[in-house]
């Protein structure tokens, strides 16, 4: 598992208050982890801060699973 994946999962566990073993790469934030749309906004803000990336709104809308987040961050972090 990549370092990005570890850090993303840690943020998801902290923000959504879910068990770490539920945060698989295929897990959907809304369908599997119980997030609402405001949680997604907060997660994106937390990712931006943690990784120093800017995630524009149109990209943020496409991030629906843990894997989507990891992929986007790996492709865009400096």
């Amino acid at each position, binding site marked *: 598992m990549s370092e990005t994946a570890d850090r993303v999962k840690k943020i998801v566990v902290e923000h959504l208050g879910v068990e770490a073993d539920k945060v698989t790469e295929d897990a959907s934030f809304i369908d599997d982890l119980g997030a*609402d749309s*405001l949680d997604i*906004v907060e997660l994106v803000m937390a990712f931006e801060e943690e990784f120093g990336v800017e995630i524009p709104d149109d990209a943020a809308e496409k991030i629906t699973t843990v894997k989507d987040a990891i992929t986007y961050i790996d492709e865009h972090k400096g």
Partner: protein
Amino acid sequence: MFDLTGMTALVTGASGGIGSAIARALAGQGARLAVSGSNADKLEAFRASLNGDHVAVACDLSDAAAVDALVPQAVAALGGRIDILVNNAGVTRDNLAMRMKDDEWDQVIRVNLEAAFRLIRAAAKPMMKQRFGRVVSITSVVGQTGNPGQANYAASKAGLVGMSKALAQELASRNITVNCVAPGFIRSAMTDTLPEAQKSALLGRIPAGDLGTGDDIGAAVVYLASREAGYVTGQTLHVNGGMAMI
């Protein structure tokens, strides 16, 4: 009760009549302020007249880019927190609808409604992270009752009420409340110069028998900004001496 010590606040239109009373009321309860206004000299003079460590951040609210920059500037100047946002600034461009110019409509909507939205959108981010926020927008009794010659102003003020209700629902789970205060007739340089006959006709419509003061509005804002008002959201507090009971 209603102690604001340790809290920071951004107040727009702070050098005006009602705005300065709101700023003094918040500062009086212990909040640290970023006061904003369009006239930098007048604003700085007002800031200097407040006791305490407050900052002035000038901004032209008809300039969208300047508005978007205001909250980040205020947060930086206030040491990284914004607990309270008071959207007080407002303009009027009165005219009968049939004579109203596009520009008179646009200017009022842009400053009174769109700037408030932009500021709340920007402030919601740090407030969400803090898990605390108080947004208070100053609307007007005419947003509920209408007033001839003020189609633009009444629309902007009614718009603030609807917008605040939507935002209150979006942000309630993060301990951010979004409310409005609706002044009735408030004593000001403008009301002081009204002809006597007009003034007595006006007072005849107000059960309290007197005009309100800026302090009446300041007290209402302090309440809605306080920790104690955390269960009050999406509301409009009417401060009008009973002239309209809604």
